[in-house]
């Protein structure tokens, strides 16, 4: 394996070695769980065992995991069509997620939401959203409610580079700034709006979009979970302390297509580019190298973690495949509360 290429220096988190050890091991575990979950989803799709499509998060794990590691269980997140990573990182369990993706009754949304709408109130996930940028208002509103009720909960709004095209984002960033709301806008720049490179759709520098509203901004290498964690830690602490919103730009990459069916990709991105990110910029490899170099975990320790995750994923998918569909009569339940 080659040397870690950190594109931006990692901030030191000044935590005690033992604590730091456990923290990054646990992040490795989370990232592996997401990675293996996604591989299984892709397999379910390819073997025609999953209804519809799914947008895989593989390659971007460090963003969700690094950010969510700074959050409390009662903090909020909103997520996107590419939402499995956020959901798992915030604490959801693998089996019920698979069940949701298969439209089964024990799914987080009783099969009504599916991949694009997974929500889990218990872990503060207010839901994935299939409208690009559509949850910017919800996240900001959750932060507004937190502040209004004198709570110290923070809300994190995950979205892609493509969501910078949606006017709603600017409307709510303005209010977040005006009212110092505890919301963090996390922009996952994976270079593409679907099949179009973001530079063809996005004028100016990305962080300026938030700075224009007087919002504190930061940018990190989204493949380096330690960098993401350190940056998010600061922004979340700020927000929780009453210092208002922030915007965090994370440079990242999706290893698969826009969705599981997006197989022919060479017309919009090269095989070389994909190879580069997969071999040089894989967040799992990068963290693994660091863990080894620091003497925190050797390859066999990591393999052990991977085995655990593999077992969890296997059990989870079996649970979901065996689970019943919802009763037909549920179709018109939950339209109204």
């Amino acid at each position: 394996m080659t040397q870690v290429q950190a594109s931006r220096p990692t901030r030191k988190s000044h935590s005690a070695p033992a604590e730091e050890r456990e923290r990054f091991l646990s992040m490795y575990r989370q990232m592996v769980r997401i990675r293996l979950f996604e591989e299984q989803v892709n397999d379910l799709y390819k073997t025609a065992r999953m209804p519809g499509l799914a947008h895989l998060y593989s390659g971007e794990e460090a963003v969700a995991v690094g950010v969510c590691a700074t959050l409390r269980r009662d903090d909020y997140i909103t997520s996107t069509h590419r939402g499995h990573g956020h959901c798992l990182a915030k604490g959801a369990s693998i089996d019920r997620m698979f069940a949701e993706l298969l439209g089964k009754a024990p799914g987080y949304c009783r099969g009504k939401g599916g991949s694009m709408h997974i929500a889990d109130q218990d872990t503060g996930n207010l839901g994935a959203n299939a409208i690009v940028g559509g949850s910017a208002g919800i996240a900001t509103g959750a932060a507004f409610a937190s502040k209004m009720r004198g709570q110290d909960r923070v809300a994190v709004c995950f979205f892609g580079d493509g969501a910078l095209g949606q006017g709603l984002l600017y409307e709510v960033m303005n209010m977040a700034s005006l009212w110092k709301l505890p919301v963090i806008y996390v922009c996952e720049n994976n270079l593409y709006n679907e099949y179009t490179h973001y530079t063809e759709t996005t004028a100016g520098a990305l962080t300026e979009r938030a700075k224009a509203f007087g919002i504190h901004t930061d940018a990190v290498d989204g493949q380096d979970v330690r960098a993401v964690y350190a940056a998010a830690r600061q922004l979340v602490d700020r927000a929780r302390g009453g210092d208002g919103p922030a915007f965090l730009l994370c440079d990242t990459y999706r290893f698969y297509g826009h969705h599981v069916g997006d197989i022919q990709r060479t017309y919009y991105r090269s095989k070389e580019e994909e190879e580069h990110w997969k071999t040089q910029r894989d967040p799992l490899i990068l963290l693994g190298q660091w863990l080894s170099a620091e003497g925190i975990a050797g390859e066999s320790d990591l393999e052990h973690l991977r085995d655990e995750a593999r077992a969890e994923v296997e059990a989870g998918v079996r649970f979901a495949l065996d689970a019943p569909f919802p009763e037909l009569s549920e179709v018109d339940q939950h339209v109204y509360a």
Partner: protein
Amino acid sequence: MSTPSATLSQTGHTGAPTVRELTLAQAIREALAEELRRDPTVYIMGEDVAEAGTPFKVLSGLVEEFGPQRIIDSPISEAGITGLGVGAAMTGMRPVVDIMFGDFLGLIMDQLANQAAKVHYMSGGKLKVPLVVRTTLGATRRSAAQHSQSLHAWVSHIPGLKVALPSTPYDAKGLLKTAIRDDNPVVFFEDKMMYQLKGPVPEEEYTIPLGVADVKRAGTDITIVATSSMVQVALVAADNLERLGISAEVVDPRTMFPLDKETLIASAQKTSRAIVVDEGYERYGVTAELAAVIAEGAFYSLDAPVKRMGAMDVPVPFSPVLEDQTVPTPATVTELAKTLCGRA
């Protein structure tokens, strides 16, 4: 008119209520003030809602009582404030979002129809959105095409939303209080031409359930189903018709959803003739739904086709001579009723 006593009893209240005359604006303000007092999770957000009390002065005085933390002036960001409302509602608040003109619904339809309306269902019943969006409808204010529309058909179409259209101060207060306490998103339409309309409102607290039509006037020869401001138009038309010996029953559904189909159908079955009057554009508007429901439900009792009168299918023109032609009036409703009763 059975309104005050009939619905008061629904809240279990007995004894003679103290009834004042309030304007529709006052009734709405009172409903909001009472709910703001009762429940600290209620707040109001909108453009110029605080010191200005909205351009229609409906909210005057609220910021003085409840402070700028709960009566919140926002930027001119309709989608944004609705989005914030959805998120706040999902996390424990009961926001009342003020959308100054119903014409601006076009800016918030995604937040209303794709977010607010669907969160509860998509989450398998886990999350809920107790949000109220207050907005206006109604023409003839010489405000031209972008400030005069009655777009309640759009939201009435969307499962997950409830829709109220009060026609009297009494109904406005009772329905709004219910809407605020409802655990679902409710869009509440106020006719801006009716804010000064007066009517009896009891001192005592009361609520009106969503989904219960009100027979504003009993009659035997023809049913006039009317919404919002058109109820007042229908009542004048009913007076006209009475002088001609035609007894018209005026039925106000009060909410587009839930829709009290039974009352509408029963009235049409009784009278055997029905007209539906509404201020939204006629085509693909709510008159279509109401007429279709009656035509199907009362099919075997009807002596004539159900007739519809909506706003004319044109953008609302500015010029008064043109604008006045676009909405149903007591005269045109009377005329149509006469024709339908074979008396034209």
